[in-house]
């Protein structure tokens, strides 16, 4: 006899689908982030985005070759674009790691294992992803401060991401500890006859 799924399990089912989509989109984005950082820098020396798009229309293989050159070589020639690319890649990798842990947690909840040590471990791993993002944002802010020689970057979005993801990481650690305790209480309750 199949048990009726609870509202929590149905919610978790939706989160599993969403987490999969987010993870896939993030993995695809990682491939093109260095190119986006290069074109966003404002002064591309090799070619502009419009030029690359025109080449793609004319000859797809040629366009792909030029895109690969931008991703693998051109973006790393100037410190500004290299730092932006590294920051973007760190953000994407951290986000992918967080989405993966979210997927595991959602799948466990959908299977009816809400209060399990596995979920506590996933939250601890998600915290590591948040701290990586906070570190990347802090690194980029400090680099901009050094480059410009003024504290103006402290008012940028990257500077705001540092305390935001730091708080997120601490929240994930707190949830991990709570879930671990909840799992202990559940195990004890399961042995209450």
């Amino acid at each position, binding site marked *: 006899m199949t048990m009726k799924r609870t509202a929590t399990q149905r919610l978790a089912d939706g989160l599993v689908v969403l987490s999969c989509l987010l993870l896939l989109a993030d993995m695809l984005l990682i491939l093109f982030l260095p190119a986006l950082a290069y074109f966003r820098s404002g002064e591309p020396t090799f070619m502009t985005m419009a030029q690359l798009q025109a080449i793609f229309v004319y000859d797809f293989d040629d366009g792909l070759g030029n895109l690969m050159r931008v991703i693998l070589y051109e973006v790393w020639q100037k410190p500004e674009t290299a730092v932006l690319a590294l920051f973007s890649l760190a953000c994407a990798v951290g986000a992918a790691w967080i989405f993966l842990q979210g997927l595991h947690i959602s799948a466990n909840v959908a299977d009816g294992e809400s209060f399990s040590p596995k979920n506590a471990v996933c939250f601890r791993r998600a915290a590591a992803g948040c701290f990586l993002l906070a570190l990347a944002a802090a690194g980029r802010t400090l680099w901009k401060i050094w480059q410009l020689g003024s504290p103006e970057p402290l008012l940028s979005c990257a500077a705001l991401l540092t305390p935001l993801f730091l708080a997120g990481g601490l929240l994930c650690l707190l949830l991990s500890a709570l879930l671990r305790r909840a799992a202990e209480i559940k195990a*004890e309750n399961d*042995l*209450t*006859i």
Partner: protein
Amino acid sequence: MAIVVNLDVMLAKRKMTLSQLSEQVDITLANLSILKNSKAKAVRFSTLEAICRVLECQPGDILEYVPDSSDTKGGS
């Protein structure tokens, strides 16, 4: 654990099997087995009441306190 469950002794006295007890008290055989083997962490009063009613006994007939060998001082 210092609390020993003597459920098998009472079942033998009443000539009843664990399965029969499980059906009469409406507790799963798995849970009764956990209780019988002293693996349970806690017992609800409602469970104790149901078992005592079916086996026609007192809680003391089922539960026994056996001090650990490390306890040298008696309780007051």
